[in-house]
């Protein structure tokens, strides 16, 4: 019996040692990288048209068999936060989507590297880009990206409903929008004619707000990145007051918009339940070509307001410091990847053109406007002339600093609160300005 007890104790210690050894060996095996001559690139994107991206990757890999690209996609709502934690958590991508409003943040944090220092040939593309796109990818004279797409925030309306209400032309100012919306409501054509995505998780909200302010000829920040939107009776306050009135007084704003993101608004517009919206221009392609009840009835107009100005933005491919640190082979392959996706292949912008033809995404590469196929494609759902006219009046977002990304999250919450009447527009804007100053102090 004594021997059995001793054996059991020794046996259990021995078993424990064996188990721990096996576990350690398994962990080492899992941790060890696979050998092989192929370069593996991690490519992070937000979730839009993943099958198209996968097909593009497949074609790239066919031309570059020494490279394997693994795609990781994240919801657009969470992209900024997820990438921030990936960059700092040793799980950084090699190449990733980025945006003009995150450029300064990612450069300040040391997460992405200048492309022209590794690939001087990319500089030759710059002269072909729209000015707001070039500005959105350049910092301190260095180029940090090749464009994925560049587009405008535009005013979109249902032409059929507007004509049915007795109006001959699109609204020119926000007062016109109000009058046309009230007429549509009074005639029983649409209960809530205006729908703009107000869901505070949706990063589009701030760009839409900027556009509406720009349309009135206003600014959000001055040349030194100081807030001007909080000045009493500023165009920003007028815009926010207008949105608040549309929601609570005139009741022409879809009350479900605080829980609506961009895709929800597109569905509502497409179903004919709203007549006016402010969205990125590529949504016009979806509305006129997609499976919607009101398909083909939508038009773009210059952003209402005295200045008709709007936001022009660029989303781009960036290369991470992680890729640069992994060695020359990875850098070389990342460069070829960027070239294929954001540059020219055999003298043509193959991937950029594909996005424009298939999805109506805008582009930074101005020569594509001279491409007959592209122009014809745009004119099926939009207007090349009007698009170019609006582009001339487009500006990048002001105030782009390393802390703009986190300020944006707070700003959206305040905008929502003001539109719903939880606080006054003036208080909301002042609160946004206070947060800006606090972040400025914190970030030095």
């Amino acid at each position, binding site marked *: 019996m004594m021997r059995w007890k001793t054996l059991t*104790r020794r046996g*259990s*210690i021995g078993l*424990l040692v064996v188990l*721990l050894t096996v576990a350690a060996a398994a962990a080492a095996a899992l941790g060890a990288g696979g050998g092989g001559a192929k370069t593996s690139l991690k490519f992070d994107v937000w979730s839009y048209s993943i099958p198209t991206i996968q097909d593009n990757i497949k074609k790239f890999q066919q031309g570059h068999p020494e490279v394997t690209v693994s795609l990781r996609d994240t919801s657009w709502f969470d992209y900024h*936060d997820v990438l*921030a*934690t990936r*960059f*700092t958590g040793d799980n950084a991508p090699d190449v990733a989507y980025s945006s003009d409003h995150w450029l300064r*943040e990612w450069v*300040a*944090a*040391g997460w992405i590297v200048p492309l022209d220092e590794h690939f001087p040939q990319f500089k030759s593309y710059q002269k072909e880009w729209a000015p707001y796109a070039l500005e959105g990818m350049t910092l301190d004279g260095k180029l940090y990206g090749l464009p994925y797409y560049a587009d405008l925030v535009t005013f979109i309306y249902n032409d059929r409903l507007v004509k049915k209400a007795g109006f001959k032309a699109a609204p020119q100012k926000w007062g016109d929008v109000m009058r046309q919306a009230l007429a549509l409501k009074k005639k029983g054509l649409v*209960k809530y004619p205006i729908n703009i995505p*107000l*869901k*505070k*998780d949706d990063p589009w909200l701030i760009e839409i707000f900027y556009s509406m302010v720009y349309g009135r000829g206003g600014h959000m920040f001055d040349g030194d990145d100081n807030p001007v939107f909080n000045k009493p009776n500023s165009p920003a306050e007028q815009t926010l007051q207008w949105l608040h009135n549309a929601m609570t007084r005139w009741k022409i704003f*879809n*009350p*479900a*918009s*605080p*829980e*609506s993101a961009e895709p*929800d608004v597109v569905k*509502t517009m497409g179903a004919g*339940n709203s007549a006016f919206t402010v969205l990125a221009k590529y949504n016009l392609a979806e509305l006129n070509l997609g499976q919607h009840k009101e398909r083909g009835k939508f038009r773009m107009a210059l952003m209402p307001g005295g200045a008709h100005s709007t936001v022009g933005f660029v989303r781009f491919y960036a290369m991470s410091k992680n890729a640069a640190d992994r060695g020359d082979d990875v850098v070389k392959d990342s460069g070829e990847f960027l070239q294929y996706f954001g540059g020219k292949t055999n003298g043509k912008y193959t991937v950029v053109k594909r996005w424009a033809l298939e999805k109506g995404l805008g582009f930074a590469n101005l020569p594509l406007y001279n491409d007959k196929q592209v122009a014809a494609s745009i004119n099926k759902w939009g207007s090349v002339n009007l698009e170019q006219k609006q582009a001339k009046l487009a500006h990048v977002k002001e105030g782009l600093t*390393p*802390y703009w*990304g*986190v300020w944006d*999250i*707070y700003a959206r*919450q*305040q905008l*929502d*609160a003001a539109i*719903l009447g*939880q*606080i006054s527009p003036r208080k909301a804007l002042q*609160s946004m300005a206070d947060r800006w100053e606090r972040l400025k102090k*914190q*970030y*030095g």
Partner: protein
Amino acid sequence: MTTAAADRGQARARKSRLGRRTYSWATLAPVLVIVGVFTLVPFVYAAWTSVHRHVLVLQGRPFVGLRNYQNAIEDPLFGDSIKTSLIFVGVSVPLVTLAGLLVALLLNQRVRGFGILLVLVLLPWAVPTVSAGIMWRLLLHGDFGAVDGFLFRIGAIDSYIQWLSNPTLAMASVIGVHAWREFPLAAILFLAGLQTIPPDLAEAARLDRASAWQRFRYVTLPLLKAPLLIVLVYETIVALSVFDLVYVLTGGGPGSATTLFSWFTYTATFKYLNFGEGAALSFIMAAVLLVCIVVYMRVVRLREDVT
């Protein structure tokens, strides 16, 4: 026995005790290491983070003392989120308690189909919170939700109600969904308590011509004091720390209408990327929860003493 033999015996006994102690520690060591790694280390790291500037985008982690705590408390959303949390706790805890008690009283009648009723009662509790949140978000959507669709169809409303877009209704919706998920546990606890009450007491009261309300008020309720306290304290802890439901259902909105303290802590850390302030807020929340847990433990001990 000779002295030498006794000494040898003692030596063997000491060796045996040493062997047993070594064996005990050897078998416990891996578990202690794992527990230490996943509890103590994060706790200490969080404490360190809370007194250092730790903003993801900024380089360096300088020591800042209690500045993170000060900044967090001075944030306008700090006060707002505490107020919102107090409203949430103040309404949801009594609601869960009352609903649980009523259902327990019903189940205690041992009506026909008791087994099926019990399963139906437990169903909300079995649904994972995230799934429940997604389900209710779709049901309550202001444009196409099934709840509005049904109410509109039966003529109860003439236009869709914005359950999640209206600030007041959004808060009510979060409270409602939370209560829907939590009341089964309260019901089970109350049912267990009801089943320990001797039926003779109620019978005696009935014979004395006490009404149903009088029997409940003077016989049943006093004997449910212990489970009632447990439910109140436990549900308070749960309500103070609820996060996943808010994340899925409203994202803290519209505006800041459903920004509970737990959501504010998450936002500070993962949205504003300020891990220092997030850690400070976590410790503040942990301190409050610790008080609740101490009260809970005392209540449980009280119940054990009573039984």
